[in-house]
């Protein structure tokens, strides 16, 4: 598995897209800091980008990689290697290289602008951690979709749909249910609804750490009470981990039974 991981990883490291992705974040980081010159403000703007773009790129890249390396995968399958190692190796290679591009691309400009002396460091690390989680989650989802669909177009379609659902439609449904049931106490409902969407969960986690959380008022206070405690933070990390582990487990499960 490590060998395949290594191979996938180096393959991706050599590919142009990783560099484009890395350079994009590098540029974004520098431009944001150049315009804002204030780390904590830049973190807010960055959050908007991360919670939308990171999942999108993770999804598209995962599907693309899976379909592109299909022939190589089939070649590997002919060798006496465990199936799960092949797929896990490839998955970790993709997710790892994407995460690295993200962390380095954003980390370098922020470090140069004096991140380590500022108190934004915790917010920033939380941002990177959730960014890494989102990459892992959406790459895993993409691999699952690609594995279940032989048809490339269909696979791409489903992948984009999943992203669209979690990034946009879910919030729409969430909003509708909040408005429809506005007569009822909605605090626990909104807490749970947030938990079930990794994008919302990441957004809330970061928002609550920033100054802007004062805008959330009463609802924010309840969220803060929950996420502010160690237990809340633990639960959200566990939720994000679950979101990663379940698709990865399904990937292993499906790949074992699939007839190539």
């Amino acid at each position: 598995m490590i060998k395949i991981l290594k191979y996938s990883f180096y393959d991706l490291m050599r590919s142009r897209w990783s560099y484009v992705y890395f350079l994009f974040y590098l540029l974004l980081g520098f431009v944001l800091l150049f315009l804002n010159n204030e780390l904590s403000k830049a973190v807010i703007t960055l959050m908007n980008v991360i919670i939308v773009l990171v999942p999108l790129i993770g999804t598209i890249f995962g599907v693309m990689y899976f379909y592109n390396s299909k022939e190589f995968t089939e070649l590997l399958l002919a060798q006496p290697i465990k199936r799960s190692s092949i797929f896990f190796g490839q998955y970790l290679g993709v997710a790892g290289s994407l995460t690295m591009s993200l962390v380095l691309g954003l980390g370098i400009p922020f470090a140069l602008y004096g991140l380590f002396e500022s108190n934004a460091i915790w917010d920033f690390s939380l941002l990177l951690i959730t960014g890494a989680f989102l990459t892992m989650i959406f790459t895993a989802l993409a691999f699952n979709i690609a594995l279940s669909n032989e048809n490339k177009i269909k696979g791409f379609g489903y992948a984009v749909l999943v992203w669209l659902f979690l990034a946009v439609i879910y919030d729409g449904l969430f909003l509708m249910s909040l408005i429809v049931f506005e007569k009822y106490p909605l605090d626990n409902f909104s807490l749970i609804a947030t938990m079930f969407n990794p994008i919302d969960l990441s957004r809330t986690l970061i928002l609550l750490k920033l100054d802007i959380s004062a805008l959330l008022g009463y609802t924010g206070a309840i969220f803060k009470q929950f996420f502010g405690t160690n237990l809340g933070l633990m639960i959200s990390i566990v939720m994000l981990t679950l979101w990663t582990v379940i698709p990865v487990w399904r990937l292993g499960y499906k790949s074992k039974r699939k007839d190539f």
Partner: protein
Amino acid sequence: MKRKHVLIYVILLLLGTNMWASTITVCSTCSIKTIKEAIAQAADFDTILIKKGTYNEFNIRIDKPLTLIGEDQPIIDGEEQGEIIQIAANNVTIDGLHIKNVGTSYTSDYAAIRVIRSEDFVIQNVKLERLFFGIYLERSKNGKVLNNTIIGDAKDEYNSGNGIQLWHSQHIMVANNSVQQVRDGIYLEFSDFITIENNYSANNLRYGLHFMFSNDDIYEGNTFESNGAGVAVMFSKRINMHGNTFKNNWGTASFGLLLKEINDAEISGNTFEENTVGISIEGSNRIVYKNNDFIRNGWAIKVRGACYTNTITRNNFLFNSFDLAYNSNLNDNVFEENYWSDYTGYDLDRNGIGDIPYRPVKLFSYIVNRTPETIILLRSLFMDIIDFSEKVSPVFTPDNLVDAKPLMKRIK
């Protein structure tokens, strides 16, 4: 000729009083060692000079026109026994004292300096520390409170007092004071024709400045910073608020300025910077908002209902999360010629006024007003999308709530 006579008469009078009024010195080595003793011995219009030192006294009652001057900030330590100085006569001046340790009580409002039914008093250059109430004016008139520094150590609202409190007082000037860490920085109740100028009120538990049932007052050039809730102006008429700065009142229930049941006021040239809510308005009519700057607030203006015939013109709205929250579909207020940093229109005829109207209420802001819980979707992509679609074709937000003449450039 008549005028000359008057002049001579005045000069003589001044000389006369000067000749009669004597100075009594208080110090630890003088014959008079306590302030109380000095007051007892003094005649009307005398001056009491208090030399440097610490005087452990409380309940000092000034019942005749006197001038108390502290040399090199002598300390009067009340040892938390109760009230320290009480002024119950006209024409009293207190200058340059350092008063500390006022007693805390749950039944009476002990103050460092209390003025009772007096006129023409001056309290200046006084420094107050560890206090309950600071300067308390009660049914007094024509006085001045200048250049005082009040630094409290209030922690809870229920056992702390206000920095400067005016109760049933008229024609008072409160200027250049600095009030920090008390309950309300400056508090006015039933006080009319008051001028509050160039004060600095910060880090107070509740409000930086608080008006209740007070009419015809002016406050200008003050700075209110990092107070528990901000500045509250309630149940008052004809208040003039000019050139003040409201800054960093940031918290879930904070605001820069709260207007409740305020009529016929003018709010101009103020700066509202980084407050959760810049101005929160409730039941306020005929108010003119002009030339104010709203910078980086959560909500620049939050209108909570029953607000009619207000005019909001020539203000700068810069980078607020929400420019305006509005809770009804009826709009009787005028928004005109403001600069909105969120405005994305164009100006083809180059007259400095945007060609398409600006709608200050975003759909999200409208939804949040209806169902506060939805604020949890702040900064979600979905919200940006529906905000955009609402901007393109408004359906939910009030039809006539527009700035028909949005400015293209920020007003300097």
